[in-house]
């Protein structure tokens, strides 16, 4: 894989509905690393990610990105392999589709679904579906991966397993992962940045030691988690002006 580029935001104004989520935002995401954006619900994490993905008006998407949302968004009428290859099917490039098919199989095997490639999504558990969504995201083979609370719906153990899997498979890519879970941010992120306020401000980069995925039982990590929770509690959960 070619070295993944860094991602830069310069003087961005992000608007969601009538609300200015961020104004004059300047932010850099280092290439080939995972940056976790941590913040309470409603702070504008998803808006920032959608802006980066080119899904909001006024966001000129510079580089091609792969997007993974909180819901798996698997299409119920396609089997797993066709779901993983969705991007190639939508772009209608037959040669690229043929070329990508072996990789889709490999990726399904890597997320532990190698024997399920012909099954419809509804036959799978929530954890398996999210693993298939991860395979689809990686199959796009884009240098920048945007993830919006991709494991929020899963039970605690499944979430930890998927974090390990994702960290391993995402190594070397430029990843922006949005989450409200401090432990997830600390396990997955080469750097963690806290979003707070309205319009939000981005806190300084926190760079825990050690390689990702980090051990959730590490006392240093747990200490950091306590500090982050305290920091999040000091920020208002709702944007000022909205109903309490």
């Amino acid at each position, binding site marked *: 894989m070619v070295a993944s580029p860094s991602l830069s935001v310069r003087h961005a104004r992000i608007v969601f509905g009538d609300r200015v989520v961020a104004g004059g935002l300047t932010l850099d995401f280092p290439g080939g690393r995972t940056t976790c954006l941590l913040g309470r619900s409603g702070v504008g994490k998803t808006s920032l990610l959608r802006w980066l993905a080119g899904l909001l008006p006024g966001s000129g998407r510079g580089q091609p*990105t792969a*997007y993974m949302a909180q*819901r798996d968004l698997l299409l*119920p009428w396609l089997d797993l392999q066709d779901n993983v290859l*969705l991007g190639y*099917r939508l772009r209608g490039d037959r040669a690229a589709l043929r070329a990508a098919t072996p990789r889709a199989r490999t990726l399904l095997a890597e997320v532990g679904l190698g024997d399920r490639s012909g099954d*419809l*999504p509804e036959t799978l558990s929530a954890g398996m579906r999210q693993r298939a969504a991860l395979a689809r995201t990686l199959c796009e083979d884009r240098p920048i991966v945007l993830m919006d609370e991709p494991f929020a719906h899963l039970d605690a153990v499944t979430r930890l397993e998927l974090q390990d899997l994702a960290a391993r498979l995402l190594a070397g890519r430029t990843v922006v992962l949005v989450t409200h879970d401090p432990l997830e941010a600390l396990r997955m992120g080469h750097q963690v940045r806290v979003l707070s306020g309205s319009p939000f401000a981005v806190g300084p980069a926190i760079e825990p030691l050690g390689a990702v995925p980090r051990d959730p039982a590490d006392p240093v990590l747990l200490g950091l988690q306590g500090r982050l929770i305290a920091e999040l509690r000091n920020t208002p959960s709702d944007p000022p002006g909205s109903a309490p």
Partner: protein
Amino acid sequence: MRPLITAVGLLLAWELLTWATGVPVYILPPPSRVAAVLVERFDLLIEQAAWTAAEMVLGLALGLVLGATLAVVFAASAGWRRWALPLVIISQAIPVIAIAPLLVLWLGYGMASKVAMAALVIFFPVVSALYDGLRRTDPGWIDLAQTMDASPRAMLLQIRLPAALPAFASGARIAAAVAPIGAVIGEWVGASAGLGFLMTQSLARGQTPLAFAALVLLCLLGLALYHATDWAARRLVPWQSPQGE
């Protein structure tokens, strides 16, 4: 099992009622008499039923194709939607029974006018259900397809259309339930064959049991059409309703 017991109970009550009141056969024939006519005139009845069944099936097919095409055109093009959607709605404001004589006048006493009538009755539920489904695609799927650089055409054909198939299937079920209405109205107004035609003819001649026998077959035809459509709809949409919160 329960519906069967209810049906047998009702038939028995009907038989007893006709026997107890001594109502003339040409007003209300007992079920036993209707059953006897069903057997005696089986050849005639089956011949007419086949004719009506052909009208229903052709009308349903035509209505489904027309309805689906219009819904896709409306979803794909705002221009067409603005110009043609009001016309579609106006066409539904005219009671179909009021245009039936006109259709017979234009298309003749044969099958064409009944097929047109059935298609006219069913195409609106189909357009409305499918167009609605096409408008309500899960926004998450749209976002995902956009990040994958899907063209508007790919978005429509590969995401929005399959996502709308469950809605189309419910439209098709409604269509199958009302298709017999269109065909039979057409036969009442003017026809040379069919169960509706047989009913008007036999009632005019006081052969009420034959009219009832035709009615029984009409009912069976309607049920068969509905269940066949339901079966096909399940085959078409093997997955459950689209995911969503």
